[in-house]
């Protein structure tokens, strides 16, 4: 028992240390779940509304993003809710868990806090045990809040078992990935590497889920990220995914404890290797420094976005062929009309995916811009600014890298969809043309640019508020991505740049909107630049 000595005290310490971030996550997630459930009867209350959305949810495009669910007999409001929300909530909860678990273990170790704690009379395994308990408590609390919220919302078709199944199912899925984070934190020797490893595994799991969902949903059982879909809470309640998650989680946890027990403090199996004795000729200024530091992250993002695009593109032939679902159509309308209809389906699908791609492509750029301030607070800029290096040069080094990364990521992602998609088609003329593709690119880029410009403004003028960038991006993404499914009022979409341009290539490209949004981005950047040149740097 001494190996876990003072476990309770350490757990309380963890919860106190992370209280703000835990509170933020819990409020955000529980409120999102409960408020959507609360409103859901208004959105999909009648049978005709349900019938309309049921068809949409069965389309491969939506299946790729929201998961495959089977409907039997009379479909209820609650079933539609579970279909739209489960995977989405699961994803956010995984992100929360990976952040909490790596932060509570390897993050603390990197800071030297674990060393300090271990020097006191605490059990050798107690810090990892406390991190585990923290995850159990946070996920458990969220699960209970979900269930209680769903019970209170009382959607038509909801059952007590289903409500608790959702709560417990999301809690165990979250916990499973949290425990994965604990394991990668033991494998890697610093927190960035642990996070990267965990996200790589999460990404593989998500991709496997997406491809199997579209091709053959039975195979989705092989992906932990797919288990949450298998709960089927309101039509055929299934507790197997919960036992699977818990069992897998226990295996991961026992591995984590075994590794933690055997390794030295600060060490990891994946070690930081020694590097160059001298700098390469390439490393000579702020741009090359940023590239040298962030190249792995940038390349990983570009590749990941492109792989996601290609994965989405593989479903083109399935969705872009109306004849598969409706063979009589050709006889009624003739082949020209059918090809036109197929083309419309693909345009609509591509436009929907463009929203996702734009949001995802914005993330690495935003990170690069916000990093300018993170570096500042970490003291890394003191050495740079003692050199003949102006604020303007450094700011625009970060901006240039950020804009280039996000722009390329978006083009690569959408390109992956369209190139792979068109290649997979039986009838190439149904596919997305080059003009449509470039219009799709041009339509979303100003949105990305404005989001990045807002981050620039915050870093330049009000750096303490920089986290708002993420909240604003999340709002923009949710409002346009979930907006039509949740039937949100139009003004909600107009709150962020994500909703300012009509979906292209479904709609025609609007060059006026393109111009004024680009102009706005430039104005915001200039304001941020002026602010950054004038303000004091924040130092340790």
């Amino acid at each position: 028992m001494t190996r876990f000595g003072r476990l309770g005290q350490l757990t309380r310490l963890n919860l106190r240390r992370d209280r703000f971030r835990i509170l933020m996550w819990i409020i955000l997630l529980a409120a999102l779940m409960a408020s959507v459930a609360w409103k859901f009867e208004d959105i999909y209350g009648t049978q005709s509304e349900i019938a309309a959305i049921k068809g949409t949810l069965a389309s491969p495009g939506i299946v790729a993003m929201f998961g495959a669910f089977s409907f039997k007999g009379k479909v209820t409001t609650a079933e539609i809710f579970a279909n739209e929300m489960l995977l989405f909530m699961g994803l956010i909860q995984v992100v929360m868990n990976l952040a909490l678990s790596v932060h509570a273990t390897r993050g603390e170790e990197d800071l030297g806090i674990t060393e300090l704690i271990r020097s006191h009379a605490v059990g050798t395994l107690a810090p990892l045990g406390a991190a585990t308990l923290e995850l159990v408590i946070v996920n458990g609390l969220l699960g209970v809040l979900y269930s209680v919220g769903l019970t209170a919302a009382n959607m038509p078709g909801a059952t007590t078992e289903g409500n608790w199944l959702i709560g417990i199912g999301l809690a165990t899925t979250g916990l499973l990935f949290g425990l994965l984070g604990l394991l990668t934190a033991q494998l890697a020797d610093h927190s960035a590497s642990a996070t990267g490893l965990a996200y790589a595994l999460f990404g593989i799991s998500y991709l496997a889920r997406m491809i199997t969902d579209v091709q053959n949903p039975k195979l989705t059982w092989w992906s932990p990220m797919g288990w949450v879909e298998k709960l089927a809470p309101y039509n055929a309640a299934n507790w197997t995914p919960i036992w699977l998650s818990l069992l897998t989680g226990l295996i991961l946890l026992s591995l984590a404890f075994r590794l933690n027990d055997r390794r030295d403090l600060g060490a990891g199996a994946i070690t930081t290797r020694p590097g160059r004795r001298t700098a390469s000729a390439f490393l000579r200024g702020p741009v090359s420094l940023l590239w040298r530091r962030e190249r792995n992250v940038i390349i990983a993002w570009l590749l990941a976005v492109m792989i996601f695009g290609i994965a989405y593109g593989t479903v083109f032939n399935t969705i872009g062929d109306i004849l598969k679902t409706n063979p009589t159509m050709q006889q009624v309308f003739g082949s020209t009309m059918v090809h036109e209809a197929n083309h419309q389906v693909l345009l609509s699908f591509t436009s929907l995916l463009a929203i996702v791609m734009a949001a995802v492509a914005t993330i690495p750029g935003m990170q690069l811009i916000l990093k300018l301030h993170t570096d500042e607070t970490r003291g890394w800029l003191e050495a740079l600014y003692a050199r003949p290096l102006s604020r303007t040069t450094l700011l625009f080094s970060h901006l240039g890298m950020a804009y280039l990364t996000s722009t390329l990521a978006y083009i690569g992602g959408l390109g992956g969809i369209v190139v792979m998609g068109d290649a997979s088609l039986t009838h190439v003329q149904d596919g997305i043309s080059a003009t449509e593709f470039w219009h799709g690119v041009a339509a979303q880029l100003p949105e990305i640019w404005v989001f990045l410009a807002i981050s620039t403004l915050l870093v330049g003028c009000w750096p303490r508020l920089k986290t708002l960038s993420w909240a604003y991006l999340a709002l923009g993404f949710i409002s346009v991505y979930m907006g039509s499914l949740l039937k949100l009022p139009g003004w909600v979409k107009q709150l962020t740049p994500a909703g300012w341009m009509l979906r292209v290539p479904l709609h025609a490209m609007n060059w006026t909107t393109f111009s004024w949004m680009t102009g706005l981005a430039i104005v915001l950047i200039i304001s941020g630049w002026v602010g950054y040149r004038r303000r004091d740097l924040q130092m340790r």
Partner: protein
Amino acid sequence: MTTNPVLEITHLQKKFGHFQALKDITFTVQPGEVFGFIGPNGAGKSTTIRVLLGLIRASGGHAKIFGQDVWSDSVAIHQRLAYVPGDVYLWPNLTGGEIIDLLLKLNGARHTAKTDDLIRRFGLDPTKKARTYSKGNRQKVALIAAFSQDADFYIFDEPTSGLDPLNERLFQEAVLDLKQHGKAVLLSSHILSEVERMCDRIGIIREGKIIETGSLAEMRHLTRTMVTVTLGDAFDVTELAGVHGVTAGQHPNEWQFAVEDKELSQVMTTLAQHQVEALQSTPPTLEDLFMHYYTGKE
């Protein structure tokens, strides 16, 4: 001889919101001079240095390096300046060798034989990633980059706080070498023996104000000399004027006390009339001076 000062600070002020971090900072540093900048934590040493580097903007007063304004001409100034911060934070996924070279290149300098020599003498492994360096090793990276550079003005902010005594001595030798080459150095330090040994002039800062500047010799006149004396008769030294903190020694007629500088000759004349058997006088150390300014005691 009139030379332009390398650094010239006049009535510098800095406010953070309502907190006045710097109230009145005035001093100069001449070419070929090592200037010691001492004061306790939170007195404003690092804030002053950050104003000098153009990292934060002064709320009042002026600061000029090479005759140029530290805020608006910072880039031009930094061409000829080298700086080592007190807490060195380095990009964790670059090696020490890469960082040294990058910092040099940013100044238009290059990795030379001198750099290699410094790396060898300080005992740094340049192939390790910065995240694996201890505090002392991170400081070595910054010091090697600074000493490899051919600057005209060097600013060190508590540069030896993480170094072992051997490396501390290397640092002191390197600074004295700079001085011999006519460079100006601003050395902020807690280690008073280091300042005492290396600095030509000293500025003492307290609560955002420079309360004293001058050479150590000049400052000593402002305080008291410690005297231990053994007399041949039972004269009571407490009768003397300008004598403080008198304590009786271990032997009969042995006394210890502090004498105000201006009373020193009068005291000596009086003592001489009482058959001095042994006399030891110690000039105040920098530590005594420091304590004198900060606590008001000797």
